[in-house]
């Protein structure tokens, strides 16, 4: 049993069938998350990050559907489970945190009601026990005077406090994996770091792995063990944070790195990648990134690169195949190239 990673995604494909043809929103991605590991998933809007999260937890909005590949949790397939069985995985074994704490909580129910109903949906406890547990959790996520605030409604909390409540909700049935989908985007900059730290600490305390979806490379660099860079429904590059951030190999990753505003930036301006991600119904042949890539060559337009091992990372780029050791393009160079 222990040889299985906690979560294993293999060749996952998500389709949106339409009358004019099937859109491939996610086109064959594979990655693992180990126990206790924090995996960052990064990419532009529309790259398929959130869909990946939704697909794993089985909450794709119709008509979106998983059209291929498999998702395994501790070696057991969960992508083809019946709705009822899947429900017991959601919340119980995989917790989820959404972007906006303001809208994630039902405004018409007290937070106590919402936590208690979640606990009771998954654990065989009495309502009293569930309440005690709720108080404990709220305490743990740093809500002051937790027992008195059970009866409070979401609108009576600040944004940061609400996200703490959401974290407590995601963790209240002791899940093994937490998928956090841009958990801080909607928050005030001043509390973003606090929430990320809280998330990291509390997941470690509860022994939960995290899949942290974000578009913020800075957060990834500070928080994650490994990172997956997604582009147009595929993984461009995946590997340990240290490698990917310090020595990105995929031209897209390089571009992204350039987009991180750092406090100690020596550059005068941020690196930008020209152009924008292709629409799902107009993905170019070959490498999807080729129209924007500064290093594009003929092969990129004809053949699609599959991820290949480069050091401890995997990179889907023909450049990487041609010379695994050569192309450690540094930031300065990328800057000039663009």
């Amino acid at each position: 049993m222990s040889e299985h990673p906690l979560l294993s995604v293999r060749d996952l494909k998500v389709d949106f069938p339409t009358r004019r043809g099937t859109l491939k929103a996610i086109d064959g991605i594979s990655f693992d998350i180990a126990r206790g590991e924090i995996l960052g998933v990064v990419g532009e809007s529309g790259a398929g990050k959130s869909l990946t999260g939704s697909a794993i937890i089985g909450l794709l909005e119709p008509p979106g559907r998983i059209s291929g590949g498999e998702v395994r949790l501790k070696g057991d397939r969960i992508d083809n489970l019946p709705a009822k069985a899947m429900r017991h995985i959601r919340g119980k074994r995989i917790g989820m945190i959404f972007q906006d704490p303001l809208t994630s909580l039902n405004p018409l129910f007290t937070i106590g009601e919402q936590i208690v109903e979640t606990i009771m949906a998954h654990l065989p406890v009495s309502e009293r026990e569930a309440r005690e547990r709720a108080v404990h959790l709220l305490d743990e996520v740093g809500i002051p005077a937790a027992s008195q605030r059970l009866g409070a409604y979401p609108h009576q909390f600040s944004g940061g406090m609400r996200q703490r409540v959401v974290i407590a909700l995601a963790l209240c049935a002791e899940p093994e994996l937490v998928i956090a989908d841009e958990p801080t985007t909607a928050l005030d900059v001043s509390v973003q770091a606090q929430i990320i730290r809280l998330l990291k600490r509390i997941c470690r305390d509860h022994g939960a792995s995290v899949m942290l979806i974000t578009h913020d490379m800075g957060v990834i660099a500070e928080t994650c063990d490994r990172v997956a860079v997604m582009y147009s429904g595929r993984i461009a590059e995946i590997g340990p944070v240290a490698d990917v951030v310090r020595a990105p190999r995929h031209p897209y990753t390089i571009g992204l790195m350039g987009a991180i505003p750092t406090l100690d930036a020596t550059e005068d301006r941020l690196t930008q990648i020209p152009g924008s991600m292709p629409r799902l119904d107009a993905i170019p042949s070959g490498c999807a990134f080729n129209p924007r890539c500064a290093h594009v060559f003929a092969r990129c337009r004809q053949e699609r690169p599959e991820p290949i091992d480069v050091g401890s990372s995997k990179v889907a780029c023909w450049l990487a195949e041609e010379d695994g050791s050569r192309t450690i393009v540094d930031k300065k160079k990328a800057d000039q190239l663009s």
Partner: protein
Amino acid sequence: MTEMASPRTAATSRIARLLDSDILHSFLRSKVTIAAAFLTLLFFAGAIFAPIVAPHDPFDLAGISILDARLPPAWMEGGDARFLLGTDDQGRDVFSAILYGSRISLAVGFMSVILAATVGILLGLTAGYMGGRIDAFIMRIAEVQLTFPAILIALLIDGAARGIFGNLDREKYVFWILVFSISLSLWVQFARTVRGSTLVERGKEYVQAARLIGIPPFLIMIRHVLPNVLGPALVIATINLALAIITEATLSFLGVGVPPTQPSLGTLIRIGNDFLFSGEWWIAIFPGAALALLVLAVNLLGDWLRDALNPKLR
């Protein structure tokens, strides 16, 4: 950075939008909508060109003959080729009466909606722009107005009109009485929508800027607000047209609408209702079906418009 900062749901919503427009144009949907549009156009054309296309003039008393009364539709036994859908108790051609009746029904409907839209948009703009007491006052009236459905208002006004004008004079003004009373109950929706939009616009910079330059901001706002509310207003107008037609028909059915000598669809149904049980079903059924079809078609168009423009209607 700007691109990167777009919300998390952008990807899904982009797909959703694509799919939505897909549903919009999906085969079945458009077929129904096209049929509805065609039907509506047909009614409009029939109503506008009634004097040309109708085989008879049902309002011309000298042209109708009691001897032709209650003839069944042309294809039935005893039918007369001159009267496709049969004749009513006075010998009027039901088909022609439907064309002329739709003319009245549509005219009342259109005029009511136009009046209601004008009043509603003006009041909505005023309320939203002026704010404060005036806003509160107008919106309070709107709220009270909402309680009294078109039917009730129309009945009250009609009753008052009978008291003031007497019965015969009332008939002369009945068209305007109907238009007035129906529009009185329809303006609220327009006003609310426009007010909401105006409130949003009022806070914008160009309004402040206009004030600085010395242009009356109200005028500028009208120019900015109107395009914004055009979509929702069109949807409201379409749905209200259906409502106005139903209201007119109901009033005429209750006997307080247009007089039987110049029947609208509702009047025709009222007349035909007396013959429904006696086997002369065509006098009520054809106008009834015409009314239902017309309203259905307009409603379908309204539904489609709403989905297409997807404005927040509330």
